[in-house]
């Protein structure tokens, strides 16, 4: 069992739906985006176009963040998810330097969206899972998977650009897409073995 995701760059049209639904699901503080859509323009006028790159934790096979974590707060679960035990994290941020995909965020101080007004009820509830001084990141919505649901970014995506499944199963949709559409991870040369594959646009 190795959970993985395939993102079809041909289908992604940069609506930020995944980014917003992720924030709602995980109640992340301002500036924190476990699922992030990066936009860029390419080409020269008049032949220009916008390209979108949805980024999230790559849940690497050999996670560099896990190797450097001094307290063992970052763990590689048997199902392939790289998760953080927030009770063990001392906030040294070594994992953030080690991660080449910039997938990790640090909760450096208590912050909320409406400044002086203080946290809203929703924020007060949600921020309990993000203690100050701790590193956080995408965990493929492990709490949803436990209940047989897909990660919230996958469910939200209106163009069905995201597919989630078991990379170890050659019959699964993700394995088929990677094989048929020549899916590639980001920075394969770094030897991290990401579990998130991108299908060329």
């Amino acid at each position: 069992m190795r959970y993985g995701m395939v993102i079809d760059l041909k289908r992604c049209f940069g609506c930020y739906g995944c980014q917003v639904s992720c924030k709602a699901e995980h109640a992340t503080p301002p500036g924190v985006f476990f699922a992030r859509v990066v936009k860029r323009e390419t080409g020269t006028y008049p032949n220009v176009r916008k390209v979108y790159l949805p980024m999230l934790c790559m849940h690497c096979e050999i996670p560099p963040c896990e190797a450097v974590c001094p307290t063992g707060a970052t763990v590689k679960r048997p199902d392939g998810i790289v998760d953080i035990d927030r009770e063990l994290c001392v906030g040294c941020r070594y994992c953030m330097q080690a991660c080449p995909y910039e997938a990790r965020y640090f909760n450096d101080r208590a912050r909320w969206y409406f400044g002086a007004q203080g946290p809203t009820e929703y924020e007060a509830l949600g921020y309990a899972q993000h203690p100050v001084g701790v590193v956080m990141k995408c965990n493929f919505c492990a709490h949803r998977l436990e209940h047989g649901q897909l990660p919230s970014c996958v469910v939200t995506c209106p163009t069905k650009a995201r597919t989630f499944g078991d990379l170890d199963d050659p019959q699964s949709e993700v394995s088929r897409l990677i094989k048929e559409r020549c899916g590639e991870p980001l920075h394969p040369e770094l030897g991290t073995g990401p579990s998130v594959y991108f299908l060329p646009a």
Partner: protein
Amino acid sequence: MMSQSPPTTPTFADVNRDVLRTLGPPGNLYFAWMCVVALVLAWGILAWTGQIWWGMGMAGKRVPQQWAMYITTFVFWIGIGHAGTLISAILYLFRARWRTSIYRAAEAMTIFAVLTAGLFPLIHAGRMWFAYFLLPYPNQRDLWPNFRSPLVWDVFAISTYLTISTVFFIVGLIPDIAAVRDASTGWRRRIYAMLALGWEGSDSQWRHYRRAYGLFAALATPLVLSVHSVVSWDFAMALVPGWHSTLFAPFFVDGAIFSGFAMVLVLVLPMRHFFKLHAYIQEKHLDAMGKLILVTGLVLTYFYLSEIFTTLYSGDEFDKASLFWKVTKSYAWALWLMYFCNCISPLILFWKKARTSPVVLYVVSILVLIGMWFERFNIIVPSLGHAFYPWAWGIYVPTLTDTSIVIGSFAWFFLLFLGFIKVLPSLSIVEVKETLPPPLKDRPHASHH
């Protein structure tokens, strides 16, 4: 010029008198310095308290640079801590006699520098109150630190280094403390008597002392190489462009020795001036220190060139982009300042006149310290600000909090050192005497032992 001896060769009695004089009641200047240092330290502690209270966010905009000033200063202080053991252990084993009059101050500097550096992992951690999670201690949850993490290697490397250098320092002090004990009265005498561990100067005590000293020197020697190698692997083990290099361990060790010698001079030159120790810390000592700074500086220049060459030759686009960004963009000033301070400024020490001039040596040492702080800054901040993804590039802006804490760390170090020079003999009575001609009835023939 080289063999020029001091105006008069001190006798054994002079050594005792001059060294014990340094422990006399301090003057106004000393108290003024103490006040300045204590105030700066208090300000730094206040800033740290604020940071603990409100969170790491107090330490500035640090989106890509989650490691910045604190880790820079941590590595800087660890580096400073190297010269002491090099002077006291390695030069002892090589029987370099010029070390005798500076090694005590250098050893004290080592311990204080490591004590200062040791604060930074705590200052840097988001939840410093859980920092003990890094220690392998038996606990009910059967949790162990991750032994694959270079940060855990750091914990072992640095605590070993601190332990061995402290033991080495204390053992070397025993005969001198006995001399201070014999010259003091009242409660001071009782304290020094306790610290002297019953030293009487008998033959068997000397034999044990020499053996123990040689043994600790041998134990401390490999640590000079290991500690900074391990610290360098904090960076070299990560994938960040500009960090992921096999050059890092020797590069860091050399830089550490380079900056450590500069700090020794920054401390010893004023000590020599204010305590009037010109007869003991002579031109030949300054000359030897100057030569070592020059050599380590040249080796460092070679490492800088190798680093640039391997980056260009490797063909790694990310490495190259990172290098070009460092050399030409936002942080170029820091890089060129570093090259000037570490590569150009020590070149003046090719001239013997410069090596024996306290003013020139002092200026070069300060420049070297600035350069070596910026070396670590250049390794950490620009590399992190220009890693793989353009959307995550950024500039680090220091705040009042982190600047105050970094400056406060210097105050903490100088506070410890100022305390040391008035409490313990900052010049080794024993070893200085060893280099003097023994007191004979007729005129002594210059003896080396």
